[in-house]
């Protein structure tokens, strides 16, 4: 994967007001719904603590719980596969499909499947896979990537979707959401019955029962996973929770944090395979063990993929997920992208935050995202040395602040020469890297004397 140019992507998106408006509207709407919903859950804060504790317990004995899950899952008749990376995962899935002569597959929404880029791979091997989640279906026919962890088509407006359905599927042009949904529903309905295999992700892997959970709103996951004779679930190993007793806690925090619903419409718990219905679970490692062994990054493994941090992030609200250039977008997505795709690909991403802390405040499992971003920034600067002008700026400031003589001289000089950059008593066109500021913003001129100097004068007078 090539280096992700976050700022370049973001600037392109900023020049497209339709996307900016669509993302802003959708994220603000989700936040407002969340606010209303959690106001009616009196123990929401305790539920967050309980969920956090359960995830901490998983991290305390990760391998123990993973083994327990695998053992119990096998007892349920599930076939367990383990993939070290995305390539291995793709090969495993292809192998399963080939052995059973699968030509057509349907799938519910899964970010892990996006992570391993399974669709183009299967397509290249003559296997057609249909996305059945409405948002995923839309971006599949648009040949785009998801722009939000839980709402993949958040960047598209109703009009754009109407045009897409008209052009790609031959539907008569309408912007009515009900009509569009009905059309997609009818279109996909046939596929469930024709499909040789159904695929899904997993929201939770329950260690003590060996069962797994898929939550959804459209009923498409239920149909994808039960109508075809074969179900392949693709999931990251971090989705573990210790016990089925913990599940209600997670279900109670997931939907409110994500869409602002009290509960998702459907909660599917898979607990048994049968003779005429095979269930395979592909457990994917792909960088997660590296996170587990990293004292700072490991906290991010607790993420339950609610997308709340994206909704609340003022940068995400402006540019949406595509700016992040990765399947995982938004604040937590930065961390995941860095961990999975490596520091060279993701070296610009940790800086794509003002560290405002809104993500930490909203995170249902209280992941300290700003703290992790700070650490990643430190690592990037340590690896790359930092950009020259930025390094010079920081170095200069450090000198000015630690050397009193330089301080006096520097600011005295600045106040003397600033006149040439002044217009109407404001600095409006500064040189060097400061021009990045005055491109959009004015700044007050430096006063001739510092507070300390003035203080001393006043005391002595």
């Amino acid at each position, binding site marked *: 994967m090539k280096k992700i140019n976050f700022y370049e992507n*973001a600037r392109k998106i*900023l020049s497209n007001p339709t996307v900016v408006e669509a993302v802003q509207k959708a994220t603000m709407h989700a936040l407002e719904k969340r606010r209303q919903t959690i106001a009616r859950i009196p123990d929401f804060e305790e539920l967050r603590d309980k969920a956090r504790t359960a995830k901490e317990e998983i991290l305390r004995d990760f391998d123990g719980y993973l083994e327990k899950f695998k053992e119990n899952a096998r007892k349920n008749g599930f076939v367990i596969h383990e993939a070290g990376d995305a390539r291995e995962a793709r090969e495993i899935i292809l192998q399963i499909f080939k052995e059973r002569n699968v030509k057509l597959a349907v799938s519910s929404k899964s970010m892990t499947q996006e992570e391993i880029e399974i669709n183009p791979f299967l397509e290249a091997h003559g296997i057609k896979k249909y996305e059945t989640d409405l948002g995923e279906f839309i971006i599949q026919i648009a040949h785009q990537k998801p722009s939000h962890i839980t709402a993949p088509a958040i960047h598209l407006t109703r009009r754009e979707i109407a045009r897409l359905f008209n052009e790609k599927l031959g539907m008569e042009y309408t912007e009515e959401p009900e009509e569009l949904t009905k059309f997609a529903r009818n279109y996909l309905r046939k596929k469930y019955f024709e499909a040789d295999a159904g695929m899904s992700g997993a929201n939770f892997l329950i260690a003590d029962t060996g069962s797994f959970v898929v939550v959804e709103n459209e009923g498409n996951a239920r149909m994808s996973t039960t109508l075809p004779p074969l179900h392949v679930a693709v999931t990251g190993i971090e989705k573990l929770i210790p016990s089925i007793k913990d599940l209600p806690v997670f279900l109670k925090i997931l939907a409110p944090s994500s869409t602002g619903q009290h509960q998702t419409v459907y909660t599917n718990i898979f607990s048994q395979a049968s003779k005429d219905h095979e269930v395979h679970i592909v457990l994917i490692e792909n960088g997660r063990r590296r996170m587990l062994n990293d004292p700072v990054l490991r906290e991010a493994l607790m993420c339950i993929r609610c997308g709340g941090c994206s909704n609340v992030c003022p940068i995400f609200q402006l540019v949406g997920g595509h700016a992040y250039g990765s399947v995982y977008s938004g604040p937590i997505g930065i961390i995941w992208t860095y961990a999975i795709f490596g520091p060279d690909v993701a070296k610009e991403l940790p800086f794509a935050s003002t560290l405002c802390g809104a993500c930490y405040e909203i995170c249902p499992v209280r992941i300290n995202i700003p703290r992790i971003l700070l650490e990643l*920034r430190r*690592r990037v*600067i340590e690896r790359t040395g930092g950009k020259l002008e930025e390094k010079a700026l*920081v170095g200069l400031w450090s000198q000015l*602040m630690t050397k009193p003589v330089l301080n006096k001289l520097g600011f005295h000089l600045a106040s003397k020469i600033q006149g040439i950059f002044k217009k109407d008593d404001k600095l409006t066109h500064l040189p060097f890297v400061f021009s990045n*500021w005055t491109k959009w*913003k004015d700044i007050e001129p430096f006063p001739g004397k510092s*507070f300390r100097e003035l203080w001393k004068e006043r005391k002595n007078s």
Partner: protein
Amino acid sequence: MRVLLFPTCLVDHIKPKIGFDTVKLLEHFGVEVEVPEKPSCCGQIAFNVGYWKDAKEMARAWLDVYDVPGFDYIVAPSGSCVHMIRENYEILFKDEPKTLERVHRIKSKLYEIVEFLTKVLKVKEIPSTFSGKVTYHASCHYLRGLGVKREPKEFLKNLKNADFIPMDLEETCCGFGGLFSIKFPDLSYNMTKRKAESIKNTHADFVTSSDLSCLMNIGGVLSRLGLKIKPVHIVEILAEGLEDEKD
């Protein structure tokens, strides 16, 4: 009670008036204030963009200036700088037990000005007046970092003649983010513009905050957009109507 004032690097070099207004507030409540001769910066500007070596240098120099005997408290007119010292110095010096000792010692004495007035001096109300419509921007590190939400707004509401009007995006970041604003100017500007619109919708004459950094950023855009709303630090508002003790 003796307080050593940490004016912060921005106030010191860009808007000394905020320093004097902080002193005025403190002296009004009977506090004796001293100001160090040496300049100092908490180091946040370097720390937040990953230059921890430079951050350490500034933080160490800061500790040398402020970890001195003879003062009961250290007070600063900035939520962000206090947050840096209180929360991040421990990360920065995690491998230096001796420095950590100094950090712990100083942490318990360090307060942001409104925090100091309400928590330490137990001030309920500032006996002052301010005429004008004013709206409040909650700086991120003050609100979510230090957890101060209600107190500054209570002070503003209770000022005689002041007309406090909250804005809808009060708790949304203004887009400054230190060097973020220099690294990603177009993004920063668009965030600030959104904030400016929220401020404009209140029809306030003034926008105030605990942090000069946010106000410089917001003010820079208000000015560029030709809006006449004035950015003022919260101590400027609180101190304006107070009798000057020394006069």
